[in-house]
């Protein structure tokens, strides 16, 4: 959290008009959390940006060193609170990799179902807030936002009847999952999935060819392929720039190789390309959920006995880096175990942190109004940026 705004680090062609330093955030309607962007403006054009983060810093990495393998997964949800399932997933995967703990097939499928539903829920929130950024709380953006929230509720209802909570789940545990499906859940899930599939068509009708939407997104915030590769962004951002990189494909985990799905790649690199990528991902995630429900095997949901005490899970000395494809990209957990019940060191590789680092590269040269559109298309979650 830096309080010094360095002189604009980016010199663009100077038009001769007086420069204006404008502070956007940390409390700003479209800051997506607590994010401060110090913009240097020439008229309406942004010529420099300094991104200030850290307002939500809780030092998760230190926290993880003080909590055992049994305790931390439910805290891990708090890094990326919009897609809480994925961060838990990365942590338990890392722990299981060091301990060489097998995960039963049913647990793997349940993990996939939860992760994909979470991706849909997260993308719904992204679409809503992004349109809110572009359309305003007093305009069409709010309409799309409320539609998306309305549909997201159905997924949260599913999570609620599965684990009992709507935001921070604690569904994953080392060696499996904590909860089995309640009776009737699979049917309810199928209905929800079909319903959301229909409603996504509605959003597309509202946005797809809409000239107002197109002029705001096409050619805005272009990330070239080279830039995308240089900065290390991942997820829908890098796929929108023509790089075919999806961990579910390049390094299948948790039985993702069993499922048939398409990894969308767009070459435009602009906000519209990222929108297209995510819209396809919606459908593909729903497809994966359907397949997983169809083929869900019987069996135990965890390879380890149920938790009875805090230090029950001990993991031998070693280190591992586990990554999962979260809604925002590569969510990774680098874990060093020293043989005790607590990790020696843990590093979160938050997808939003790396994705947000692209902002200073692409925002200069755009108008003020584009800043929020670009930021929305990056889809940062500040719990994950600041950790």
């Amino acid at each position: 959290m830096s309080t010094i705004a360095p002189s604009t680090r980016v010199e663009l062609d100077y038009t001769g008009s007086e420069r204006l330093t404008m502070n956007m955030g940390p409390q700003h309607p479209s800051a997506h959390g607590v994010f401060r962007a110090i913009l240097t403006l020439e008229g309406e054009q942004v010529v420099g940006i300094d991104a200030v983060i850290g307002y939500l810093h809780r030092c998760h990495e230190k926290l993880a060193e003080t909590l055992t393998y049994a305790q931390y997964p439910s805290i891990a949800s708090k890094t990326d609170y919009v897609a809480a399932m994925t961060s838990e997933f990365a942590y338990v995967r890392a722990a299981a990799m060091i301990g060489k703990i097998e995960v039963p097939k049913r647990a793997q499928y349940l993990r996939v179902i939860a992760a994909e539903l979470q991706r849909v829920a997260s993308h719904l929130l992204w679409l809503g807030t992004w349109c809110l950024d572009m359309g305003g709380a007093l305009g069409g953006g709010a309409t799309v936002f409320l539609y998306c929230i309305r549909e997201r509720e159905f997924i949260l209802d599913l999570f609620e009847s599965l684990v009992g909570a709507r935001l921070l789940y604690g569904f994953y545990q080392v060696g499996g999952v904590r909860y089995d499906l309640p009776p009737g859940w699979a049917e309810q899930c199928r209905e929800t999935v079909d319903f959301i599939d229909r409603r996504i068509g509605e959003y597309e009708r509202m946005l797809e060819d809409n000239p107002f939407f197109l002029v705001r997104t096409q050619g805005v915030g272009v990330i070239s392929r080279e830039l995308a590769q240089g900065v290390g962004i991942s997820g829908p951002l890098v796929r929108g720039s023509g790089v075919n990189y999806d961990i579910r494909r390049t390094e299948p985990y948790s039985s993702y190789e069993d499922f048939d799905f398409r990894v969308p790649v767009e070459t435009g690199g602009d906000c519209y390309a990222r929108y297209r990528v995510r819209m396809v991902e919606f459908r593909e995630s729903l497809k994966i959920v359907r397949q997983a429900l169809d083929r869900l095997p019987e069996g135990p949901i965890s390879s380890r006995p149920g938790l009875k005490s805090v230090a029950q899970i001990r993991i031998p000395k070693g280190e591992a880096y586990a990554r999962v494809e979260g809604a925002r990209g590569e969510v990774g957990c680098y874990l060093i175990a020293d043989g005790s019940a607590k990790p020696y060191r843990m590093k979160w590789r938050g997808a939003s942190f790396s994705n947000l680092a692209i902002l200073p590269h692409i925002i200069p040269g755009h108008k003020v109004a584009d800043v929020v559109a670009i930021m929305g298309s990056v889809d940062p979650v500040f719990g994950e940026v600041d950790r």
Partner: protein
Amino acid sequence: MSDVQTAADVRALRDAAPRARTDVPVIIRAILGAMRVTLRNLFRKPVTVHYPDKQRAYPDRYRGLLALVYDKETGEEACIGCRLCEYVCPPAVIKVEMLKGEKRNYAKTFTLELYACEFCELCVQVCPTDAIVMMKSFDLSTTDRRELLLDKDKLHAIGRQFEQSWATGNRLRDMQGPPKQARAVEHKEAAGV
């Protein structure tokens, strides 16, 4: 390529990005299509739940307010003060003191700082006697923070006041873990069936 994109780069990239068709019929159709969607939603039923007037149905596994319960058969406090929940609680909001008894132990004090609780259900999970459970209750807000510091009496009172959720320690442990059948048999034997 230089370190950052310059304005000229931005302009070039903007112009190079693919454009959608700009035919007038397409535009008109898209605009009318968007307005049709909003019009269609105008006649849908609102999804609002009038919260304090109408309670929504809580699912069976709802993780809400925490409570202590009495043993159903003997009517005694189920908590034996073993402090397992205190150790497992990630934000460390539970404090228990044990009172040694003749036949069994009790919790001398049991405090729960609900304002810091994160409802992860780990305390329920580890409880060997199913004493701490979660309730189907959502209304936790209060005007005084001190009211959220729950002691043993308050926790028992909450246990009587609300409906209990499905999860208890034994149920959770039964659901997880690989040797499911074997352990189920064990429990039956222990219960004398």
